[in-house]
């Protein structure tokens, strides 16, 4: 991913900054600038997510694309955030630990590196809540 493409979403990737429609109260992460429900009468504002949620479904990736090969096996999950929206993210735990319904919270982690001399992509992973 190019530097600009990564950089422009840094607040969202690092700090889970999403959006909220102030007309209907629906939250969006990843952020949306257009509410699918209220359409043009929607009023979108920034919203910082608490970063807590529940695992909805998961897998353990054994065969990855080049950037993630060294991480395998790793846990990938769909997490439902407490504010409502769902997102895809890695869960930092042993493969046999992950369960549907598991409570997780966000953690700032390195996601991938763009080649040996490229940009390091940081972002959000989840860790189990004790």
């Amino acid at each position: 991913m190019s530097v600009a493409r990564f950089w422009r979403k840094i607040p969202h990737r690092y700090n889970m900054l999403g959006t909220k429609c102030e007309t209907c109260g629906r939250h969006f992460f990843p952020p949306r600038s257009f509410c699918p429900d209220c359409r043009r009468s929607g009023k979108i504002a920034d919203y910082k997510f608490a970063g807590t949620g529940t695992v909805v479904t998961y897998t353990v990736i054994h065969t990855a694309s080049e950037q993630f090969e060294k991480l395998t096996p790793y846990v990938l999950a769909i997490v439902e955030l407490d504010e409502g929206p769902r997102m895809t993210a890695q869960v930092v735990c042993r493969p046999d630990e992950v369960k549907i319904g598991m409570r997780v919270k966000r953690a700032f982690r390195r996601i991938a590196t763009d080649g040996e001399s490229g940009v390091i992509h940081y972002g959000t992973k989840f860790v189990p809540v004790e």
Partner: protein
Amino acid sequence: MRDVAVIGAGCTTFGEKWSSSFRDLFVEAGALALEDAHLSGEKIDAMYVGNMSAGRFIEQEHIGALIADYAGLATHHMPSTRVEAACASGGLAFRQAVIAVASGMEDIVVAAGVEKMTDVEPGASTDTLTGAADREWEGFVGATFPGLYAMIATDYMHRYPLTREQLALVAVKNHYNGARNPIAQFQQEITIDTVLKSPMVAEPLRLFDCSPITDGAAAVIVAPLERAREFTDTPIKVLASAQASDTITLHDRRDISTLDASVVAGKWALKMARCTHKDIDLVEVHDCFSIAEICAIEDLGFCKKGEAGKFTADGETALNGTIPVNTSGGLKACGHPVGATGIKQVFEVVQQLRGEAGKRQIDGAKIGMTHNVGGTGATVAVHIFGRA
């Protein structure tokens, strides 16, 4: 709107075709389709080509023009258009061709699909395919395509009675059919054990739950039904063409284990064809992964949600079952050159309805359906065909 018929169909063999280039593949498929319709190229009014990612697989864009040129039709100035919807590119190209003829704008139109996937390393092809999902919010965090479908499988198996063995039976059945299809990439039968002992890709999906990386091309020719018998004694009528969309990401879906776009496109198609599930004699569904076939036969309404595992284990989807699914071998055994798959599905149904499917022929098949999915279900095309 005019009635539309398929008057010719052709397909290359599918596989890792090291000696064939992108150009070789589509020229071969196109020539086979033209020959089948007893047509010469200059009679073609327009062409629509499904292709997912020539830009990343062979660093070539402007595919419509390239194909018109190498088909020898550049100097005829025939309009040629590339259609892209990830793995549903072929299904959408076919739909565009049908719309062009139905509208009266064009008469003889080619719908083709082509993908040359083995000119890049496997890691690069995995990454390219990830572009069918949301690159920024799925691919970026480490999702792969098998990984996304694996999350569907985890959700499904948590909520419904589907055993690991039943899931494996999808691949076993599709390999059985592929072994009876001369164009199939894999022509060997396998057992449940083959699947369960194959390497893990994304839990619970193993290598033999996944469709392969494939080179191949397919082409069909459509024309107004009223003119179809000028070209063939066995025209196949297009009874319905439907297309539906859903969210690009899996995580934004209403239900992880239901492809709502399949449900909707399936309903629209049946309504347009004025028929019910009981009238369908065979269906080619988009089994990019074993779990995808399980979801597809439920989402299209051939059995109830949660029952596809038992339905498959009972043999209902086999060649001699109540609704044969993926007689071609499906994406799993016939192969999955992404942009070509939707057209290959039409090719298979045309062969079946003409009674030309050899060892995998469904006796007396009169009506067939195709179901082509882009991404994890963000685009779905469903078509229904009948003997004319």
